[in-house]
């Protein structure tokens, strides 16, 4: 979908690291307590190219997190197909990793043990160095042996990000990873995420409520309708990185996105 032109010059050609994520006519329902069905996703179709970064915007409760759970393989779609590189996703896999809306660290494990969990689960013995590297990457060097209840909200969120990054994912699913951070930490983390993505070359799907964040990070922005979520609009960003909030195109895009968003209710 994305032409080579929109891939920024600061990166090499689409890296083989990234997965092509395909969502084909996906609808999803949840049972309601009353015995009915809650229609969450409605015939959603889009493709994320290898190494691309796509942001998902949409009203609260429309089904963004659900879509990420489907891509992570934690659930099967009610209808439609979800694929990775042309292979149907039938279960979770360490190559497709989700950073949850909540950091959800394991409180009985130190930060180091939390971050090393994926390597431990897959029986990789030599993990200390890799874990330290990633902790350094997210700026948690001094906190390897801290327990989660000793971390601030932002640090917990960074630890959750590190727990995923240490596994070298090929598809990174981010569910409002910066939602709980203060404005300043948020800006630093946005720059960090950008740097990580540019260096590692994984495919990224970023759910956010923040139009500016979407425009700072993503090459494409999809806006969803209220539940059941359908794609209301798609915007190619086509700006070089690093982007600037006061850039004329940036401001114009933000205005156009907010217009669509405004029509589809509050974010």
């Amino acid at each position, binding site marked *: 979908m994305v032409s080579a032109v929109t891939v920024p010059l600061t990166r090499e050609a689409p890296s083989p690291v990234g997965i092509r994520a395909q969502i084909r006519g996906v609808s999803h329902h949840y049972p309601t307590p009353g015995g009915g069905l809650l229609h969450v996703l409605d015939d959603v179709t889009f493709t994320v190219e290898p190494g691309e970064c796509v942001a998902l915007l949409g009203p609260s409760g429309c089904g963004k997190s659900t879509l990420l759970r489907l891509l992570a393989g*934690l659930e099967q779609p009610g209808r439609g197909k979800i694929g990775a590189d042309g292979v149907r996703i039938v279960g*979770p896999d360490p190559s497709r990793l989700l950073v949850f809306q909540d950091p959800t660290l394991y409180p*009985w494990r130190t930060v180091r043990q939390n971050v090393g969990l994926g390597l431990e689960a897959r029986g990789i013995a030599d993990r200390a160095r890799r874990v330290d590297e990633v902790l350094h990457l997210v700026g948690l060097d001094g906190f390897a042996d801290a327990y989660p209840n000793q971390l601030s909200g932002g640090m917990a969120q960074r630890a959750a990000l590190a727990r995923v990054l240490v596994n070298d994912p090929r598809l990174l699913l981010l569910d409002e990873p910066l939602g709980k951070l203060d404005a300043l930490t948020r800006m630093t983390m946005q720059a960090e995420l950008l740097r990580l993505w540019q260096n590692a070359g994984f495919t990224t799907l970023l759910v956010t409520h923040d139009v500016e964040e979407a425009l700072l990070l993503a090459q494409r922005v999809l806006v969803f309708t209220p539940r059941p979520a359908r794609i209301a609009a798609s915007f190619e960003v086509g700006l070089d990185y690093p982007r600037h909030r006061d850039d004329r195109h940036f401001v114009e895009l933000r205005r156009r996105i907010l217009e669509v968003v405004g029509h589809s209710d509050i974010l």
Partner: protein
Amino acid sequence: MNDIAHHAPDLPAIAATADWPAAREAPPFWTTGAVAATVWLAGSAINYHWPDLSPWARTPLLAMAQGALGVLLLGAAIFGGRTRQVRYFHPAGRWLVALGALLTVWVVLTAKTALLPLPFFPPPQSILEVYTDDYARLLESLWYSAWLLVPGFVAGALAGFGAGVAIGWSRTVHYWGHPILRIVGPLPATAWLPVAFFFFPSANSASIFLIALSTGFPVAVLTASGISGVNSAYYDIARTLGANERFLIARIAIPAALPSVFVGLFMGLGASFAVLIVAEMMGVKAGLGFYLQWAQGWAAYANLYGVLILMALLFSGLISLLFLVRDRVLAWQKELVRW
């Protein structure tokens, strides 16, 4: 402008004259300790010089012990106010005063005036006599009780934990196991006593089984509920990171359920004490429960109180030990129920 310029240099001076350093230091003299020392020394003197109505063999020994504690407290109050070892006992200060006074009141009401009559109110010296003269039998009883309690508790805890994990994890095991726990669990293990004594080859094995049963039920129930209550996001995250079922059980489910497991162990330990004593009174002709029953049969009230105190110390010691283990294992938790 002038005002500020005038006041600013004053600020450090004010801070320096304030009484901060003195407030941080421990008081050189431990007042409560001195009061406690006085109470114990006075109690010792009263006990020693006021003759018993009918002489008790261990009155001098008790008076000496009271005096020794008094001297120790006095030394601590005067010389040790700043040492860490003494400060460790500071919180107990008022208790030390109260206990010294209570012991003296008890001595006066029993041995000295008999306002509280024998045999129901034995004087402290007679209880001391139980320890000095009957220690061999008490130790033997303690030993016998330990041989029922320890294997029973350990077996019950392990079996209950295993059953709880299985019931909490597997739907099939839950389907069959949960109703059994629901219906049979509330039955006190002591109610099984007659049946168990009939089916088991010896009273000992029956008692161990019942202690295991009384421990196992609460452990199983709380382990199962702990495991089924684990935040499902914990599993989701681990599964995406590549965890298999064994990893999920051993590294996610069980650690997450441990706080609940320890509550079960605590309840099980309490229940096992009850079963131990009843079983020893009913069938096993040895152990602390049997000693208790024997003392009651012979109206040996001093022995009765003596063994009750011993049991209280033993049981509270065991519970403290369990809490110590828990605090170690659950060091990651901030908020813990204090014992």
